[in-house]
């Protein structure tokens, strides 16, 4: 399963160097590596993968510029990580479940969330956390690593009910591997042998803390050994390799071979091209030259080159796709900008029924809103 990278190229980041044990299909340019076997994906699926990755890149750029204009609050960019996000989601079957973090915007979209709902929470509206019926995505997880035992539990529930054709895919960061919840979730996953795939998006940084400071282990994938489950490292900037690894792990989760355990920990080796969030300034703690070597391996360029090489994409189709995604993102922004949340929402959905006490609190707020006008509430507290 291990594909080797170009020997000795000194511009290749150590984490994805040929002597490391990592699955790759495309080289840094997007040409297929000599011994690589390209997964069996139809041209239509390849174009879907490409278009969704392009859309994710465009979404990211618009979101960052919107944040700068004050139209969005803090946003966690995903540039460089879209390829892995989209490839893992496209490897899912419709019935599979996705546990995203605050950074997996594209993963959510690629598993059925509409784009406008991704913008809404960033504009302060909880509406976007209401997942539509039939879309198997959990609201994003912000407290680090808390999703890991929960994803395990959902996969366990499916297994206990004989529904092992439903797999659960759980995202987490490299920083998340330091939390107790990561250990507990993976340990349970191994002990109860549940149909779950854990994807660690190792983007080399947890805000300002580099991967080497997070763990003394050489790789994150090797932590899987301690739980008795498989650990796989994949070039996370190579969408084809990620698709292959994720598909195989999901297949094993549903139908393990003799002696195989269902769960897999995938270490998707990536790089956070941008800031941690729009509130962060990476120049304080990392060297720009580090970013450059990773930018040479941009997932968008690699998949694009591959599709051109294969004759699946040409410049006409490329610009048609570009127009389409720009329109889709613009429409999503327009929709999201129309969302308004009534202050009544504060007391709703805390319990199935609003308790009397909370209703009193809502009535009191509404009394005040009538007595004074709404402007009185938006005066800056400071």
């Amino acid at each position: 399963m291990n594909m080797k990278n170009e020997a000795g190229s000194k511009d290749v980041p150590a984490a994805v160097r040929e002597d490391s044990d990592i699955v790759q299909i495309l080289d840094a340019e997007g040409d297929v590596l000599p011994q690589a076997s390209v997964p069996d994906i139809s041209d239509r699926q390849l174009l879907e993968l490409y278009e969704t990755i392009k859309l994710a890149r465009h979404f990211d750029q618009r979101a960052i510029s919107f944040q700068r204009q004050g139209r969005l609050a803090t946003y966690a960019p995903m540039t460089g990580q879209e390829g892995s996000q989209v490839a893992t989601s496209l490897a899912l079957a419709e019935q599979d479940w996705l546990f995203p973090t605050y950074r997996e915007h594209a993963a959510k979209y690629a598993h059925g969330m509409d784009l406008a709902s991704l913008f809404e929470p960033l504009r302060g509206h909880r509406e976007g956390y209401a997942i539509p019926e039939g879309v198997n995505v959990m609201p994003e997880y912000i407290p680090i690593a808390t999703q890991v035992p929960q994803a395990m539990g959902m996969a366990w529930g499916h297994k206990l009910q004989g529904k092992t054709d439903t797999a659960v895919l759980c995202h987490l960061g490299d920083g998340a591997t330091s939390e107790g919840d990561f250990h507990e979730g993976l340990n349970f996953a191994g002990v109860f042998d549940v149909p779950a795939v854990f994807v660690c998006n190792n983007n080399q940084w947890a805000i300002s803390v580099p991967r080497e400071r997070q763990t003394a282990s050489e790789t994150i994938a090797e932590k899987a050994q301690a739980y008795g489950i498989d650990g796989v490292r994949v070039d996370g900037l190579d969408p084809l390799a990620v698709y292959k690894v994720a598909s195989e792990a999901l297949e094993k989760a549903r139908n393990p071979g003799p002696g195989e355990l269902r769960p897999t920990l995938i270490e998707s080796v990536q790089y956070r091209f941008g800031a941690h969030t729009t509130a962060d300034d990476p120049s304080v703690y990392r060297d720009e030259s580090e970013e450059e070597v990773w930018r040479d391996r941009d997932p968008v360029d690699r998949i694009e080159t591959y599709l051109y090489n294969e004759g699946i994409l040409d410049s006409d189709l490329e610009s048609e796709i570009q127009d389409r995604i720009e329109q889709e993102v613009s429409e999503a922004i327009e929709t999201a900008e129309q969302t308004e949340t009534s202050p009544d929402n504060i007391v709703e959905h805390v319990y199935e029924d609003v308790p009397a006490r909370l209703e009193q609190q809502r009535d009191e707020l509404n009394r005040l809103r009538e007595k004074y006008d709404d402007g009185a509430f938006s005066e800056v507290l400071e």
Partner: protein
Amino acid sequence: MSSTASTQTGQKAQSLTLVEAIQDGLYTEMAQDDSVVVLGEDVGKNGGVFRATDQLYEEFGEDRVIDTPLAEAGIVGASIGLAQTGMKPVPEMQFMGFMYPAFDQIVSHAARLRSRSQGQYSVPMVIRAPYGGGIRAPEHHSESKEAFFVHEPGLKVVSPSTPYDAKGLLAASIHDPDPVIFLEPKLIYRAFREDVPTKPYEVSLSEAAVRRDGSDISVYTWGAMTRPALIAAENLSQSHGIDTEVIDLRTLSPLDTETITDSFKKTGRAAIVHEAPKTGGLGAEIATTIQEEALVHQEAPIKRIAGFDAPMPLHSLEDYYLPQAVRIQDGIRETVEF
């Protein structure tokens, strides 16, 4: 009782924001005591996500300003261990909403190692955490859970509302022989500046501050809510001639019950303002303390102006959730006009 007036003593001072005063406080303590160490997520090279530990890494080096793995139970548990060796750890929790993984370490151990060891061991440690809402932060970044920690015997809980107090309370917390939860109102991290002495000083952990003298009603509050309470008091003084006393508790555990009841005995009316949910909040404790100590002076029901019994909403609604000056004014009038 002390107040900010004590800055006017002619000593060398700098005009600092609250977060700068915290940075200055850490700097001052670390410079005079080698055993003080800062540890946490992004506190070193990055200087903290709010810059509260800015320049400390450059000044004191990586053995005293320590970027840790992302693990709050690890950070606090390790700090308890460090404290057993004579060091004085000042761990940072990046946001109050991310303290929960450390909860077991805090309540089962930091809070009670002294009693478990019958006074043999103790945990001199200050856990710093930004808390509270109002900065348009994402979900889980705006929590005010001070009541969790006030409920735990063995912990002290502190929350400054001015730059001067921030430095002085931090110093007193670091010098304190017991564990202190030091809650920093991030809404006012950069809201205003104040003269802060460059030399070391303490603000006592056992005294509330009377921020405004008044005779009609006592308003009890702390942290970021002190400002809207003062604004409400000023507005009502002008518009309705209501004379409001504003008490900033500063230390939430142990409470300065003397200042609380003395004020109430004078005014006979009370409103408590906190941004945490109303039910089970510290307001209930203060109201009951007043009833126990000064019932005969009471002239009106005690009013609580607090957050909803609901999770903090996302930012489009946070202005409705938090007690604004308008809500505080309305509550004061209702109580005074009872």
